[in-house]
């Protein structure tokens, strides 16, 4: 059987993470990265992946992994929709915009399925998918097969910004940044407290580093926009950290209490 050919568009570091895993599992990977998402330095193209200027027609599956620039995301999706055969599935991250909203941009919205894609979450053993009322059953099955091929469980949730895990993690990080804004404790102590005190796998400040503050910020802005609730407003220090993400700036310790 021929290798599954996947085309991955989007921002760094999500594109590299998905490309690496797909290559690892024997997929043929074509990719194009939006330079906007790369923080500071150059994004690294995983060995074995091929850079393309535009998505080719003959792929089995396409991934669109842009969370920050909605302009880029829309452009990428419209391009994929025009180039790919009508029944080729598009798995598109839906952590900052719903699948339903994305559908409105496309001529073949029935082939789009959302995914809870955030940096570092591929280390987990489950992929979260969301669909619009237009998404076809065969596309959902395709998504399940994709998860299986990558060695992951699959879960299907309703179409809502951030799905389950990205929404929860970003809200946890945002609360930690409120705590940092208020100088509740030092960043390391906050992480230590949550890991030892309540058995979290990572501390919230650690999660911010793994996911990237610009991604967290984008998810919080999207939650605030779509749910319209004050509980999703961004912490002042998260806002600043996202603005300075391209620079090597440490979280200021301020006059945090010391031992």
């Amino acid at each position: 059987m021929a290798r599954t050919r996947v085309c991955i568009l989007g921002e760094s570091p999500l594109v590299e993470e998905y490309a690496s895993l797909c290559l690892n599992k024997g997929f043929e990977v074509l990719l194009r990265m939006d330079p906007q998402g790369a923080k500071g330095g150059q994004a690294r193209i995983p060995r074995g992946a091929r850079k393309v200027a535009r998505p080719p027609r003959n792929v089995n599956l396409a991934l669109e992994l842009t969370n920050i620039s909605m302009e880029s995301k829309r452009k990428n999706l419209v391009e994929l929709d025009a180039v790919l055969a009508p029944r080729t599935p598009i798995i598109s991250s839906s952590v900052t915009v719903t699948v339903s909203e994305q559908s409105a941009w496309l001529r073949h919205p029935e082939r789009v399925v959302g995914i809870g894609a955030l940096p570092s979450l591929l280390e987990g053993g489950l992929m979260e998918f969301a669909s619009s009322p237009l998404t076809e059953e065969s596309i959902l099955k395709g998504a399940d097969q994709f998860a299986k091929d990558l060695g992951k469980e699959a879960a299907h949730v309703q179409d809502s910004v951030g799905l389950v895990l990205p929404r929860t993690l970003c809200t946890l990080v945002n609360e930690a940044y409120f705590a940092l804004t208020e100088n509740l404790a030092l960043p390391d102590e906050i992480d230590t407290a949550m890991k030892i005190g309540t058995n979290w796998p990572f501390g919230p400040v650690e999660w911010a580093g793994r996911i990237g503050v610009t991604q967290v910020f984008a998810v919080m802005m999207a939650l605030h926009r779509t749910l319209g609730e004050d509980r999703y407003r961004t912490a002042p220090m998260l806002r600043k950290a996202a603005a300075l993400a391209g620079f090597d700036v440490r979280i200021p310790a301020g006059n945090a209490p010391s031992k």
Partner: protein
Amino acid sequence: MIKTIAIVGSGTMGTGIAQAAALAHFDILVYDVSAEVLKGGMERIKEAFRKGVGLGQHTATEATEALSRIHPRRGFGDLSEADLVIEAAVENLDVKKEIFKKLDTIVAPEAILATNSSSLSVTAIASLTKTPESVVGMHFFNPAPVIKLVEIVRGAQTSNETVRIASGVVTKMKKTPVVCRDLPGFIVNRLSRPLYGEALRLLSEQVASVEEIDRIMRAAGGFAMGPFELMDQVGIDVNLAVTQSIFEQFSNEPRFRPHAVERQFVQAGMLGRKTRRGFYTYK
């Protein structure tokens, strides 16, 4: 140097702290207003040490020695020799205020007064003493002999020296101290609120079911337990009370607003594992 620690209150937290401190070679005075509760507390400590030997947590000799260092005390005046008092009474500000007013007149001026409160202001409690700089929060987590974390809460007037000494005691108990400011919920209770809040909202918005949300948080997020399993374990009523308290202390900040779903479970008496019904049903 802290040698003698008095513990006010011989409930679950008080006796748990007494065990951990006695194993760390501190001399312990355990006080309770009720003779009966005190007797029950001492029995629980003995039983816990016996079990600890069985589980290999400590040797029989260590347990016997630790137990010999724990002394029940019926009179408040008997606590005068304590270098550190850890108050672990009921979570009621009026009760705690009374205790600290009395302690202030009994202990040596250089003694440190600590409260194990998880939800009350250390600053407010400290304000009733002549030496607010010597008052600090020492928030142990249940079960105290097991959980390695202690939040050291710095009230508005707590001195650096008090924070340093309290942290040192925690370290000697082979636990990890983290220092934080006196803000509602401190670190752990406050920063874990969104885990439950988002789970309840995802459920009520029909994004996913209880089982699916828990499965996703475990398998994709790496959490040992899902948020609903955790709420059932802690008690939905207990979790709601923590949320409510933090919400109110932050002047009704919307990030901490309790959710109607959890309130309804409490109204129904479905409190989690302890009532065999909560988000899940238990046999």
